[in-house]
């Protein structure tokens, strides 16, 4: 009892403690330091992993290969990052912008008219994070970032209810406002007893860094083919490199991750072209007879390519011939949404509040919009002399962001469901395009009833 009292008594005081040094947490830290109204606050960031070392080494000696976590940034994310002085620190030779997205139905072959962003920019997560860190250091030598330190326990102070964090370093922090940027399993969300609802997609997202065969020039293009097992996407990086995001069933993911690099590369080439039945056959072969897989795929792709006219060839991505060693990784995909983003003394931002299927490349961008909104709300609260940790001060953040995120999560979720089936009427219907589906009520009702399970 007395020990606990002592440790609480020795807790360092802070105005804002951010847990998590992912894209959301670092953006929030940079935005707070950049704000004339908030910069005087004592703001700390605690990250369990090794953050500063790797980010500094990325900015001083960038690796020659692209790293495998690449995200698509929307124009509004980039304009916010520019506003808070971060974008100028981005290594622009490592990002690629594109406004051409070719998306097609893996079963019917129909092109999908995607209401995507007018311009998207592919950027390695590490590039973004190291730019954020550079900006934070530029604004204040005292960064307030504590890395390699895990938050082990969170309690409430007995007198004023402020969160008290026990850190793995033995220190403790007591804060007016605790912001959870701590990802899907958010310890902050659990501390605040906020429910998060959703479901697993029973899909894995496989990422890898690949390169198209040199030769023909193509404008930077995002390719996305919707297969019943999930979409496979190739998103452009500079110099013919490309980032793979392949969502697929757990059993396929297992098979794909066990393949050697050449066989995996062949499977990606197959997945963006061959009919679904052939792909099923190939998964089987990959499982039972991986040695002959490359030969089998080469033969099938030759047959497929021979039938294409030069114009038709342009509707498909070029052949991939290089993969960065060890760049393959898999992530579980789920959709989840917290019941609220704010409680007294607590706010949730980014994946801590919501996760989505990567098919629309929105996850990180939603977190950026959260940060922008939260910072504006905190500024307003400061001007009104409110205690920024109170729910009263934080409520506008929730009411601004929840509906917007809710709509996006719903649309992405529907897209996933519509395209992960091969039931004939739905395939027929969807070859008219998503927008048609949405405007024809009976088709939509039918689909919704079919997808009710």
């Amino acid at each position, binding site marked *: 009892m007395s020990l606990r009292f002592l440790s609480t008594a020795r807790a360092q005081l802070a105005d804002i403690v951010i847990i998590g040094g992912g894209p959301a947490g670092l953006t929030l830290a940079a935005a707070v330091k950049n704000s004339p109204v908030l910069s005087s606050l004592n703001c700390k960031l605690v990250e369990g992993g090794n953050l500063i070392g790797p980010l500094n080494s990325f900015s001083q000696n960038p690796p020659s290969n692209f790293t495998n976590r690449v995200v698509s940034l929307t124009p509004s994310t980039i304009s916010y990052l520019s506003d808070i002085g971060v974008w100028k620190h981005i290594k622009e030779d490592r990002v690629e912008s594109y406004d051409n997205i070719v998306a097609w139905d893996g079963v019917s072959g129909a092109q999908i008219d995607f209401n995507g962003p007018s311009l998207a920019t592919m950027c390695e997560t590490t590039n973004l994070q190291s730019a954020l860190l550079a900006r934070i250091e530029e604004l204040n030598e005292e960064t307030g970032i504590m890395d390699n330190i895990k938050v082990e326990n969170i309690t409430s102070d007995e007198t004023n209810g402020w969160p008290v964090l026990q850190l793995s370093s033995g220190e403790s922090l007591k804060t007016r406002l605790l912001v959870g940027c701590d990802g899907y399993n958010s310890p902050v969300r659990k501390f605040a007893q906020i429910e998060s609802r959703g479901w697993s997609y029973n899909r894995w997202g496989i990422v890898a860094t690949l390169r198209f065969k040199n030769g023909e020039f193509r404008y930077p293009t995002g390719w996305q083919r919707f297969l019943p097992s999930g979409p496979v996407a190739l998103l452009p990086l500079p110099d013919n490199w490309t980032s793979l995001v392949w969502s697929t069933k757990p059993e396929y993911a297992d098979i794909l991750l066990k393949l050697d690099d050449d066989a995996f590369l062949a499977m990606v080439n197959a997945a963006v072209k061959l009919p679904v039945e052939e792909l099923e056959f190939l998964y089987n072969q990959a499982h039972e007879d991986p040695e002959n897989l490359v030969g089998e795929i080469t033969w099938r792709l030759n047959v497929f390519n021979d039938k294409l006219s030069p114009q038709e060839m342009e509707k498909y991505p070029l052949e991939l011939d290089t993969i960065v060693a060890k760049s393959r990784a898999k992530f579980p995909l789920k959709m989840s949404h917290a019941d609220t983003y704010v409680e007294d003394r607590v706010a949730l931002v980014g994946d801590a509040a919501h996760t989505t299927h990567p098919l629309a490349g929105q996850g990180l961008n939603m977190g950026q919009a959260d940060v922008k909104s939260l910072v504006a709300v905190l500024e307003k609260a400061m001007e*009104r*002399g*409110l205690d920024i940790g109170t729910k009263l001060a934080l409520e506008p953040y929730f009411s601004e962001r929840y509906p917007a995120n809710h709509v996006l999560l719903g649309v992405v979720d529907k897209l996933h469901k519509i395209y992960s089936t091969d039931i004939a009427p739905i395939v027929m219907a969807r070859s008219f395009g998503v927008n048609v589906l949405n405007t024809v009520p009976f088709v939509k009702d039918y689909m919704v009833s079919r997808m009710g399970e």
Partner: protein
Amino acid sequence: MFLRRLSTAISEAEKSHFNSLAASWWDTTGPQRILHKMNLVRMDFINETLRSHVKINAGVPDEQKTFVPGWNHHNVLPGPVAESIQTEINRRIAQELSRPRLSCLDIGCGGGILSESLARLPMVASVRGIDLSPEVIRVADRHKALDPAITDKIDYQLKSIEQLDKDDQYDVVTMMEMLEHVEYPALVLQTAMQHVKKDGFLFLSTINRDLVSWLTTIVFGEYVLRIVPVGTHTYSKYIDRREIAEFVDETQFRVVDARGCTYVPLRGWVFTSLPDTGNYLMALQRME
């Protein structure tokens, strides 16, 4: 003398009403939510007034004064020159806004909602809150102790406005939802005015249309302007805003701003362009 003693005597019924509210004062989801929300509008009003009246050259030796043209320099001077003048002015304003320099008096501070908000503004150095209910002063004291950033900035006292030292003067005096609770508002208002420093501000608010009418009629009509005999208590004699402005002009005060505000479900309190109806905020500034 008799009047003076009674002027801020709050009726017994009012007092017990306040006491019962004290317990739930700081529960922003409870019955006081509307008051907490109203505080947001008050703070916006106070903030905007203070920000737009920052004096950047007061007390500064002539040679260090920031050049503030008395005309619209953006129209007259070449772009870069006008811009650099504006940048310098903005820099000085920001400097003044972040320098703790204002002393505040919150009359009828209740549980401290407004006092705490004032105390958190970087430009505020100290806040004194006074109230007549021992219970709410206790609530206020207990609550300020929860936030180390303001504990030492605020000083709550159980006293009436008459019990303040006559020479006590403040840069900002607030009297929110207070006049309508006292029996002799005119005297209270006059006493409050005495505690405003030169160039300082008095912020007032009242509750609703009838009370606005009542305030303008009784306060300014009967007691201040003396256009009707004291004790007439009539609602039929309205004074329009021009007359109030004229009155204030004749005192050492001027009306800087007056705004209506109203409660809109789902949106909270918003300003209206009708300061003569519904809730009402007013800023007076002492000119000499």
